């Protein structure tokens, strides 16, 4: 950090011996990285098409005409994924935070609540998402709800929110636990109540620390949204499946993957960035390989 500032100031163009060494090291590692990337790329681009059945694979997975044909339909269907994602995420955060707070309650009278919250996270995380989607998506409407309250979109989203709030609650809980006990002690000694301590001292620190794992869960949710298609709605993966069956070609799945990536890659990059920032903020300088 100090070295960087020094250089940016520009008062001393002559580099120290150490700086020269570091610069050489940096150049060397970028050269090695570039060379190894090139080797891998060449191997893929040159060798794969030489495989005996590459033509068939290419035709089954990378058919350009099929791509153009499927793309508008798939993009249209992807909009449904985005919508489900958009309305389940806030629900997940609210439920998860409540569950995490319940688990972190300290009053002896709250024991049943703590036990309930623990059971909730255990069951939600322990049962496959698919089962929840079937059970809630078909089961609850099957009890006799009328349209539109029996919509598979509604109950599929509820199932997703239930399972994911189990995971996210644990992330929140980890965040809350990571705040040092002295922070609570200090807050209480200043006269804050238990609730105020949580609200103004513990949670702000906890949430900031768990942003990267939270985003990680969101990336995962973004893909699991497709599971709602099991109970009827045609979203992107289902549309790709329909196209695949109709044209006996897997290209629609490749197109769907690219559409997914166009959302998940920025999201994961953002996660990485936040993670690095948090790391820089809280730990020492990086040790080279």
């Amino acid at each position, binding site marked *: 950090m100090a070295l960087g500032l020094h250089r940016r100031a520009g008062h001393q163009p002559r580099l120290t011996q150490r700086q020269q060494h570091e610069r050489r090291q940096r150049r060397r590692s970028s050269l090695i990285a570039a060379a190894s990337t090139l080797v891998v790329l060449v191997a893929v681009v040159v060798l794969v098409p030489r495989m005996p059945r590459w033509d*068939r694979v290419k035709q*089954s997975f990378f058919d350009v005409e099929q791509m153009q044909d499927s793309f508008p339909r798939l993009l249209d269907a992807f909009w449904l994924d985005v919508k489900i994602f958009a309305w389940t995420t806030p629900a997940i955060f609210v439920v998860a935070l409540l569950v995490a707070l319940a688990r972190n309650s300290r009053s002896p009278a709250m024991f049943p609540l703590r036990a309930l919250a623990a059971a909730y996270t255990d069951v939600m995380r322990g049962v496959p998402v698919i089962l929840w989607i*079937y059970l809630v998506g*078909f089961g609850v*409407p*099957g009890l006799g*709800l*009328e*349209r539109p309250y*029996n*919509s*598979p979109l509604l109950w599929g989203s509820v199932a997703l929110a239930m399972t994911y709030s189990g995971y996210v609650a644990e992330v929140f809980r980890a965040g809350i636990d990571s705040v040092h006990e002295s922070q609570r002690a200090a807050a209480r000694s200043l006269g804050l109540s238990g609730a105020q301590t949580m609200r103004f001292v513990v949670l702000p620190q906890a949430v900031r620390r768990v942003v990267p794992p939270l985003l990680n869960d969101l990336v995962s949710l973004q893909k699991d949204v497709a599971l709602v*298609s*099991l*109970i*009827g*709605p*045609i979203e992107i993966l*289902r549309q790709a*499946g*329909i196209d*695949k*069956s*109709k*044209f*006996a070609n*897997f290209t629609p799945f490749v197109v769907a993957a690219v559409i997914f990536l166009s959302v998940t890659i920025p999201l994961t990059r953002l996660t990485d960035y936040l993670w690095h920032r948090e790391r820089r903020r809280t730990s020492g300088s990086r040790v080279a390989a």
Partner: protein
Amino acid sequence: MKQRSTRIRLIGLGAVAVLGLAACGGDDSASEDNVADEATEEAVEETASGTGNDCTAGKTLAEGKLTIATGNPAYEPWVVGDAPESKEGFEAAVAYGVAEEMGFTDENIVWVRTGFDEAIQPGAKNFDFNLQQFSITEERKATVSFSDPYYSTNQALVGFADSAIAGATSVSELKGAKFGAQAGTTSLDFITKVIQPTAEPFVYDDNAAAKAALEAKQIDAIVVDLPTAFYISAVEIEGSKVIGQFPLSDQVAADNFGMVFDLDNPLVECVNVALGRMRDLTYELVSIEETWLSGYTGAPVISLD
């Protein structure tokens, strides 16, 4: 299973691995090796019969055996009680009929199970042929081969007897309803191309999920082939009925069911000969149809206008 294990003991340790590969639906070279091994076995039991005819020789996955696939699970009235080995149900009976025509005795028939979708995708197959109401379509012919049709049917509508569309007589009355179908089937195509409802249909992996949605009243009706419609309404969903069947027209071709083979499998010819004999010579196909599908065809017709 018993057959297979005795054979494994016969051939000896070296071949076990090869057979294991073949049993997993392995690649071409494995099954070739397998054929070679089987040939030596043939020499041992030269008089063995019931292992196919001249046409099928060398064309089946395992020499002297006919490996037939059906759905997992298989539904009535096509296969009774999910047990094709019992020969009960239309498709089970047809499969055994074809096998018999081709000279396979019952003990040389091996049943395997596949999903509907996976069987019509490109790639190696772990069966000689697969029958689970596969409609013969041009698009599918690019990746798999079909036998001649063994049954022709049309699409039908199943819904609750008290639903708003229960009395529908024409497609125009169905526009406002919500439909469901199995993914990748001709029934789904039928909904989007012929019925053209205002609401997007719901799509399911299998008819079981479609039935659950019907019971949850998330959809008004499901579209399936006529015999399946009758079975669902009579046995599987209490209170449902076959609302109607759709007539054939220029717009709607009959749904012809064919057996699915790996692309360009030479065995298709043998099966077609067998099917031809069952259709035109022994009339077995008709009698099987009468046994298993009679009472599965009379439903009110819903006009296409």
